[in-house]
C-alpha cells in the first residue's frame, strides 16, 4: 500500500489515468452534438484541471488554518506548495479556456462571471507569493501568508458558484445538483481524466514538499559550515 502512494508510483498512476482518459475522450466519447462540436473535446482535460486548481487552493486554505492553530512550519510549506501548484493549474485553465472560448464563442476572452472570478483568484494567489517574498522573518511570513490564504480562498467558492448564481454568463454549467448533463461514455472519460489530474496534483505536492525539505536541509548545513 505504501508503495502505491509513493511519489513515483503516483506519477505512474496519474500518467496511466490521463492517457486512458484522453483515449476514451477521443475514441469512446462521441463528438458533442451542440454547436461546440469537436472543440468540446477540450472539456475532458480543461474541467479536471480547473477542479484540481481549486482543490489545491482548498488544501492551502486548510493548511493555513492548521498553521495558525499549531504554528508548525510544515503547514506553511504545504500551503506554499499548494498555492504554487494551484497557480500552475490555473494558468493551464486560463490558456485552454481561452482556446476553447475562441472556438466556441469566437472570442479569446469575455468579461463574464466565471472567467472574471477565476482571473481574480489568480491575481489573489500571485499576491500571496509576492507577500511571501517581501517578509523575511520566517514565522511572521508564515502567519501573514496563512491569513492571506484564508482571505484569498473566499473567491474560490465564488468562482465555482458564479455560473450557477449568475446564469446569464457565457460559460456553460455541466455539473449541477440534478446531474452532469453528460451521457455515459462522456462521463466515464471525464471521471478517468479527473482521477488522473487529482493523482498528478498529489504527486506534484509530494515532490514539491521534498524540494522544500531539501532546501531547508541545505540551508541548515550551510549554517553549520558557516558557523
Amino acid at each position, binding site marked *: 500500500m505504501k508503495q502505491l502512494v509513493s511519489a513515483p508510483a503516483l506519477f505512474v498512476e496519474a500518467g496511466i489515468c490521463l492517457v486512458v482518459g484522453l483515449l476514451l475522450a477521443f475514441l469512446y466519447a462521441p*463528438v458533442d452534438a451542440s*454547436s461546440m462540436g469537436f*472543440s468540446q473535446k477540450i472539456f475532458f482535460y480543461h474541467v479536471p484541471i480547473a477542479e484540481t486548481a481549486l482543490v489545491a487552493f482548498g488544501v492551502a486554505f486548510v493548511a493555513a488554518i492548521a498553521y495558525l492553530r499549531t504554528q508548525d512550519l510544515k503547514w506553511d510549506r504545504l500551503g506554499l506548495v499548494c498555492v504554487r501548484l494551484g497557480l500552475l493549474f490555473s494558468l493551464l485553465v486560463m490558456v485552454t479556456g481561452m482556446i476553447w472560448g475562441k472556438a466556441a464563442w469566437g472570442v479569446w476572452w469575455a468579461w463574464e462571471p466565471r472567467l472574471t472570478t477565476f482571473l481574480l483568484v489568480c491575481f489573489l494567489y500571485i499576491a500571496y507569493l509576492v507577500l511571501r517574498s517581501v517578509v523575511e522573518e520566517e514565522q511572521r511570513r508564515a502567519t501573514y501568508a496563512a491569513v492571506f490564504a484564508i482571505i484569498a480562498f473566499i473567491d474560490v467558492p465564488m468562482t465555482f458558484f458564479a455560473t450557477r448564481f449568475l446564469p446569464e454568463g457565457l460559460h456553460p454549467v455541466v455539473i449541477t445538483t440534478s446531474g452532469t448533463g453528460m451521457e455515459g461514455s462522456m462521463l466515464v472519460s471525464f471521471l478517468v481524466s479527473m482521477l488522473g489530474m487529482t493523482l498528478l496534483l498529489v504527486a506534484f505536492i509530494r515532490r514539491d514538499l521534498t*524540494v522544500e525539505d*531539501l*532546501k531547508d536541509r541545505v540551508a541548515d548545513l550551510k549554517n553549520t559550515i558557516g558557523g
Partner: protein
Amino acid sequence: MSIEEGAKFVAAAYAVILAVLVLYYFMSARRVNTLKRDVELLEQEVQRRPAGAGEAGGE
C-alpha cells in the same frame, strides 16, 4: 464548426497542457536531484571539517 477546424483548437489546447505538465515534471525532478547532490556534498563537508580542524590543531 467543422471537425477539422475544431481539431486545430483541440490540438493546441492539449499541446499546451502536455507541454507545461511534462516540463514541470522534469524541472521538479531535476531540482530534487540537484538538491540531493548539494545535501550530500554539504554533509561530506560537515564531516570533513572537524577532522580537518583536528589535523590542523595537531600540527
